[in-house]
């Protein structure tokens, strides 16, 4: 298999996961997320010959997070201007699931870019604190404190993380 084919396989296998991460990092801005993913994969492509044997997805994810940080710094003002106001969802016109998801995105937008990255890596990508620290290039202590701040903003208590009984949903969650 030549390099281009193997890269295409990688893209096919991983681009959607990267898009999910990008979507969360950008607070639901799918266009910017897609652009982030395209830039990330372009960089991965250039580094592909020396990266195939390693953890390509980890490299790509780290690149994506770093790119988002760079973009956030450059576009900080614009991001603030276009972010949605953090009012609470009343759910009056949507189902409860829709309201909750919308609330999640609005809540994520209230976080700093680093807080958002920590939350996404810890609880969406299920990385350990140590792995998250390595991915972001910060200390373990920074990850712990950032995570605590983020959860406080999201009004999530880490003490409440527990195995939940499986619940059979009576309907398919509505996509938004």
């Amino acid at each position: 298999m030549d390099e281009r084919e193997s890269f295409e396989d990688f893209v096919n296998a991983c681009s959607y996961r990267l898009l999910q991460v990008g979507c969360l990092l950008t607070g639901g801005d799918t266009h910017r997320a897609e652009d982030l993913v395209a830039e990330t994969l372009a960089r991965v492509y250039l580094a592909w010959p020396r990266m195939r044997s390693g953890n390509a997805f980890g490299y790509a994810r780290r690149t994506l997070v770093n790119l988002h940080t760079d973009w956030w710094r450059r576009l900080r003002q614009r991001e603030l201007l276009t972010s949605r106001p953090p009012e609470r969802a009343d759910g009056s016109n949507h189902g409860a699931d829709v309201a909750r998801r919308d609330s999640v995105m609005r809540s994520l937008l209230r976080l700093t870019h680093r807080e958002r990255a920590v939350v996404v890596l810890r609880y969406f990508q299920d990385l350990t604190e140590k792995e998250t620290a390595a991915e972001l290039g910060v200390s373990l202590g920074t990850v712990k404190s950032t995570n605590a701040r983020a959860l406080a903003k999201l009004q999530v208590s880490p003490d409440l993380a527990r195995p939940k009984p499986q619940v059979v949903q009576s309907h398919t969650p509505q996509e938004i």
Partner: protein
Amino acid sequence: MPDIDDLRRAMRSETTGLVMGVSIDRITRRARGLRARRTGVMTAAVAVGVVTLAVPGYALLDRTQPRFGDPPMSSPSSCGPRPSASQRMPQTIGPLVETGTSIEAADRRRFDVLLGLIGQPDRPMFSIVFRDQRTGQLDPWDMSQVVRGPDGDFAGHGPAWHFYSSQMPLDAGRVLDAGIYSRAAQRIVVASADGGADARLARNAETGWTFFWVEREARPLPADANTGPEEYTGPERLTITAYDAGGRRQHTVTGGFNVGGRTQNPRDNGPDPLPTQTPGLPCA
């Protein structure tokens, strides 16, 4: 949101059903631009119908006289009908240069091929311009920004470099190589495994750089030769060498990402079409 499991579920739910619109073409094109920026060259793809810039005919006043040893120019000196004065004119740095080559597009329109520098003197763009023989309309399809270093050579990360060129297949087994050299030269030879040929030269007085172009019998480089993650090393790889008046070799380059990239042109409509949304990449 009571607990972390709810947060996890909410994030997964929020990112379900996304549509992936990033194609391999878009990625490789972006990679090529990224690599070009890293080496000091930024390739700007200009597609038909998106940007149509017209240069009045008087911008095509002349070309530098052929130098000693240059083959005679075969192209007519006529610049064709002049576009309307109301059409916008890009700022050119010195006159455009006729190559004498023309191509025919699918709709049977023929285009003359010209070379030039467009933009600001401190940020010139080497451009391959196509002139519609019927209307005289000039379209700078292929533009590459070349950063001018303090010594006049091309600057970028790493050492200065001297050649930038692109290649356009003509008939079977025949190509046009056109580019720019960062200094004056008496003779420039473009070669590949199929053989070499002396290029025609034209000096750009404003920059001191030298345009070169040559039609030669050779297999073209693969279209993706300059877009892969590694340098192409096949037999079509170019070697370009510049000589001074005494026949001494000034600079030479073999392969690399700055020489031999496929010329974007109205006949092939590419090779890099504008980004298209291509949904359908499988979800992991």
